[in-house]
């Protein structure tokens, strides 16, 4: 990673974390639906950077969200899982080509981008709500929360990425 990339990622980490805990955690659309847009950090983390570093940073990001929302370690667990699964999901959504030449998220087709974001968001949300509610008798509630929050998150993440697209180029 180059210097400006490191600074960009640090800023992104802090800004997304604060945005999540101050604004997005308090939306409560329809009573319980909140978007989790801090995933953008893991989604955009440089594709050619170290995978070990990504896993560790995902854990830190999740843990800092947990510190704010009194939820034990549920965000940390969900984040560390998607951080670990990201290379596989990248390969699945963009084909093997991503390993050889650096794919950029704003240069792939819209369909591939949505597939990548949707997969990451739904895996993250399922683990998150599964651990947070932590009871098999509430499986319907877990699936309902995952579905609604997931749709909300995907839409919000797509909007944010579109808004900041020009800056990245």
């Amino acid at each position, binding site marked *: 990673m180059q210097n400006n990339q490191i600074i960009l990622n640090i800023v992104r980490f802090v800004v997304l974390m604060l945005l999540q805990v101050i604004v997005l955690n308090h939306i409560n659309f329809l009573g319980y639906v909140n978007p989790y847009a801090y995933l953008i950090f893991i989604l955009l983390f440089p594709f050619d950077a170290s995978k070990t570093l990504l896993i560790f940073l995902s854990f830190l990001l999740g843990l800092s969200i*947990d510190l704010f929302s*009194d939820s034990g370690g549920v965000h940390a667990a969900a984040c560390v899982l998607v951080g670990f699964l990201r290379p596989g999901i990248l390969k699945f959504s963009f084909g093997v080509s991503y390993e050889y030449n650096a794919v950029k998220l704003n240069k792939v087709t819209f369909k591939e981008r949505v597939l990548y974001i949707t997969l990451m968001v739904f895996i993250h949300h399922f683990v998150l709500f599964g651990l947070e509610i932590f009871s098999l008798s509430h499986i319907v509630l877990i699936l309902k929360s995952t579905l609604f929050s997931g749709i909300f998150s995907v839409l919000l993440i797509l909007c944010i990425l579109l808004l900041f697209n020009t800056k990245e180029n």
Partner: protein
Amino acid sequence: MQQIIYFFIKNKNFLLFALLFLISFILTLESHSYHNSKLISSTNFFSAKVYSVTSNITEYFDLKEQNKILLEQNSSLLKYQANTNTPISQIPLDSLLSKNFEFTGARVINNVYNKTNNYITIDKGYNHSLEPDMGVITSKGIVGIINKTSGKYARIQSLLNTKSQINAQLKKSKHFGFLTWNTQNPHIVQLTEIPKLAPIAIGDTIITGGNSAIFPKGILVGRVANYTLENNDSYTVDVRLFNDMTNLSHVFIIKNKNKQEIIQLQSSDDAE
């Protein structure tokens, strides 16, 4: 030996993932176990500071609503004064309560109500002599129990928490049960284990029972919205709270001066 080192290097990503996932899983389990979630909480210096800065800004948005609540409370106190001719400064918040209880006001800096285990953070802590297991109310009704304190902040386990079990009773017949929450609706909690004999009707008032050292008897909780008979011959009652748990700004913490004595007495009974 070389093989082992090679194995570690080859699988370092997976091993790191497994370790970190295990840590977060343990933290999660710890937060689900009763009364014991103390490692990760929003009373730490950093998050509490961020929350108090943001609540300093956002509290201006509902000043109107808070003024209305204050006005209602003032008018009920004035009414009490006019009817009894005692100077207002000598009576506690609610004269029905005995003099063994002290009240401390605090401001809510973070309030969550959309999860299954909800917590509220307030801006006073053990520097203001708050301790875990003190009750928290507003002028309208019950809120929860403090479960962790730091120097300047404290965390309240809200009524809207599947781990909460608070003693409460019917106002007219003194039959008591436990307040729990089924996570469905932040305005409605469940009162369980009310005996079948109890005369119960929709609209009845529910108050706290005096059976614990945490809440004095007679703090308002809510009204009966619905009730069903369970298999074990007891009612489960849906209680609509007087408090709007989604809009809390100022709360009172109850300190029981005789708590130590009560606990000592109860534990000496167990020893015999």
